[in-house]
C-alpha cells in the first residue's frame, strides 16, 4: 500500500490480488451465512472492489479511512488480514475488535481504518475530525471518507463539508454510487447531481467510473498528493454496482432491480475480470498466473475461515470490559464501588 510508481507490474498485480481478496472474502462470508455459521447478517462489497483498492492503494498506513456497513472491502484494501477479519465476523476473541464489533463495526487501527459504521452517513464527522487532526499536527496525512449514495441524504455530511472547505482539511469524500440504497434506486432519493452538492461548498468534485481500478487509482493518487499539500478537500463520486443483494439475506430482489441489469454489470463491468483481461492484454500476467492468484487467495481464505470457526469466543468476563478506558469492569465502576 505504498504510493510507489504506477507503471509497475508489481503494483498492478498487488491491486489485482487485493481485489480478488475482497471478492473471495465476501464469497466465504456469504457461505458462512448460508450455512448458518455466521451470527447476524452482512453486506457484501462484491462488485465494488475497484473503488476500495484503487483508492487505498494511494494511501499509506498513516493515512486514515472511515468505512460503512458495507465495509469488508475497505478493510481488506487498507491492509487487514483474513484471520482477524473472519474471527470478527464470527464474534471470536481474536477478531479485530475481540468479537465485540462484528461486521458492521470492524476497525483496524494499525492500518488506519477507523472503523465501519452502522449509522448510514455516521462517519462523515469522524473522518473530517481525523483530517482536522492531520491539519493541526501538520504531518501531511490524509483521510478518505467512504460512503454510499444513500448517505448523501444525511445532513451531517453537509455540515462537515462546510467546515472541511472553510478550513481546507486534507480529506477526500468518496461516494460509492452503486445505484441503490437498500431497495430504492438512487434517482428516487437524490435530487440534482451529487457532485454539485460538494461543489456548492467550493469543493472540487469528480465523477468517474468506479469499475476501472486504474482510473480510480490515478485520480486517487492525484487527489491524495494534492490533499497532502493542503489543496483539499476533494469529492469523488464513483459509479459502481453491488453484485449481490443489500445484505446476504436479500435474495428475491426483482421488485427493485432486474436480473438483466445485474447480469449486465456482472458480465460487462466486473472490475476484477476487466482488470485481469487488461493485465493479460498488456502481458503483465497470463491467465494461469491470474488463476494461481485466485487459488492461492482462496486457499488462504479457507484456512482463515477454518481457523476462525475453531477460534474461541471471548470469555464471559469480557462483557463489561472496554466500556471505559482505564476501567477494568464497567459494572462495579458505574455503581461507584470501584474507580
Amino acid at each position, binding site marked *: 500500500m505504498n504510493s510507489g510508481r504506477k507503471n509497475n507490474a508489481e503494483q498492478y498485480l498487488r491491486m489485482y490480488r487485493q481485489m480478488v481478496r475482497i471478492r473471495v472474502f465476501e464469497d466465504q462470508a456469504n457461505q458462512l451465512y448460508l450455512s448458518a455459521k455466521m*451470527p*447476524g*447478517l452482512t453486506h457484501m462489497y462484491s462488485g465494488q472492489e475497484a473503488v476500495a483498492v484503487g483508492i487505498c492503494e494511494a494511501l499509506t498506513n498513516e493515512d486514515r479511512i472511515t468505512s460503512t456497513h458495507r465495509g469488508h472491502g475497505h478493510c481488506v484494501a487498507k491492509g487487514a488480514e483474513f484471520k482477524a477479519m473472519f474471527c470478527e465476523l464470527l*464474534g*471470536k476473541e481474536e477478531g479485530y*475488535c*475481540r*468479537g*465485540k*464489533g*462484528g*461486521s*458492521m*463495526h470492524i476497525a483496524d487501527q494499525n492500518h488506519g481504518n477507523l472503523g465501519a*459504521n*452502522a*449509522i*448510514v*452517513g*455516521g462517519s462523515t464527522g469522524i473522518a473530517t475530525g481525523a483530517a482536522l487532526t492531520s491539519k493541526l499536527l501538520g504531518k501531511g496525512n490524509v483521510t478518505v471518507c467512504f460512503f454510499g449514495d*444513500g*448517505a448523501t*441524504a*444525511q*445532513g451531517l455530511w453537509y455540515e462537515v463539508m462546510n467546515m472541511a472547505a472553510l478550513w481546507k482539511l486534507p480529506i477526500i469524500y468518496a461516494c460509492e454510487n452503486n445505484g441503490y*440504497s*437498500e*431497495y*430504492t434506486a438512487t434517482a*428516487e*432519493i*437524490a435530487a440534482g447531481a451529487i457532485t454539485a452538492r460538494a461543489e456548492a461548498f467550493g469543493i472540487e468534485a469528480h465523477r468517474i467510473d468506479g469499475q476501472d481500478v486504474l482510473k480510480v487509482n490515478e485520480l486517487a493518487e492525484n487527489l491524495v498528493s494534492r490533499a497532502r499539500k493542503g489543496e483539499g478537500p476533494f469529492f469523488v463520486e464513483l459509479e459502481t454496482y453491488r453484485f449481490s443483494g443489500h445484505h446476504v439475506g436479500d435474495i428475491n430482489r426483482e*421488485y*427493485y432491480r432486474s436480473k438483466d441489469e445485474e447480469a449486465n454489470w456482472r458480465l460487462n463491468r466486473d472490475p476484477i475480470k476487466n482488470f485481469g483481461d487488461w493485465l493479460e492484454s498488456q502481458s503483465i500476467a497470463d491467465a494461469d498466473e491470474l488463476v494461481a492468484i485466485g487459488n492461492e487467495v482462496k486457499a488462504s481464505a479457507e484456512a482463515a475461515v477454518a481457523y476462525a470457526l475453531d477460534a474461541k*469466543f*471471548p470469555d*464471559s468476563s*469480557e*462483557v*463489561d470490559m472496554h*466500556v471505559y478506558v482505564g476501567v477494568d469492569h*464497567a*459494572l462495579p465502576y*458505574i455503581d461507584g464501588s470501584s474507580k
Partner: protein
Amino acid sequence: MTREITHSQAVNEAIAEEMRRDERVILIGEDVAEAGTPFKVLSGLVEEFGTDRVIDTPIAEPGFMGMAIGAAMTGMRPIVDLMFGDFLFLVMDQLCNQAAKTHYMSGGKLKVPLVLRTNLGATRRSGAQHSQSLQALVAHIPGLKVALPSSAHDAKGLLKSAIRDDNPVVIFEDKLSYQDKAPVPEGEYIVPFGEANVVREGNDVTLVATSSMVQVCCEAASLLEANDISAEVIDPRTLVPLDERTIIESLKKTSRAVVVDEGHRNFGVTAEIASRISEKAFYHLDAPVVRMGAMDVPVPFSPALEDLTVPTPQAIAANAGRIFRGDLLHAI
C-alpha cells in the same frame, strides 16, 4: 372470533384500518412502500393506499421527522417509520425540542398528532448500533406519550390508539417478536393508554415487565410456580402515562417486586417504576424492589457476550426467589 396472527400482521392491520378510516393518516419513512420495510411489516400498504400516502424517503431521519411534524401541525396524521430504535438519537431534536413542546409553547393552539413507530431489542447479532432499547429517553420528555406493546393484540390495539391520539406518540415494537403468532380478535378494538395489563395473576411476588420482557417474565413465573412461588406479571403497556395504580395494587398483595425492561438498567425505565413502587407502596414492601435491565454496556456483537446482556427467565426467577426467601428470613 379470535384467530392467530403475527405481531407484524397485527401492526399492518392496525395501520391499514386506520388509513381506511381517516384519510389524513399517512406513512413516511425509508423503504416503507414497495419494500414494506426490511422487516416486511408494511407489505401491501402501498398497493392499497398509493405512494401519496405511503411515502418512501431518502435516508434522512431528522429530515422526515421534521417534515412529519410540519405535516401534523397542518392537518395530516403522519406515522413515521424509524427503521431501528437506535436511530432515535438522530431525531431527538425534532422529536423532543419540536414535536413534544409545540402544543405547550403555543399555549394549546398548535398540535402535533403523529406516531413515531420504531423498535427495540437485542440478541439479533446486529451490533451496538442496531440493538438498543431506548424507551427511557423519550419517556423523560413531557409532551410525548410512550407505548410498549408486548403482544400482537396490544401491538394492534395500542397502535390504533396512538394513531387516533392528538399528541406525538412513540411506540416501540419488539423486533424479535415480529414473527410470533398470537390471538388477535377479528373485530375492531383499541387498547387505551394508561391501562396496565395483568398478564398473569399471582400472590407472592410482582414481576413488572415491559415489551420483550413480558414473555420472559411469564417464563420466569412458570419457573417460580414449579418452586411454589406464585408470581403476578404486570405489563404497564404505556410508560407515559403510567398506570401506577395497578402496579401499586399488586404490590399491596405481593409485597415484593422485580421490575424488568430491556433498556439499560442505569438511569433507565426500571428506575422510575421501582422508585414509584418504593415510594407509593413503602409500607407494604417486604423486600427491596429488584431492577433488571440490559447490562450497562454497549450491546456486544459476539453471541457469547450478547446473550449475557439481556435478562433471562432463570435470572428473573432467581431474583424473585431470592427476595421471596429473603423476606421470609427477615420476617422470622
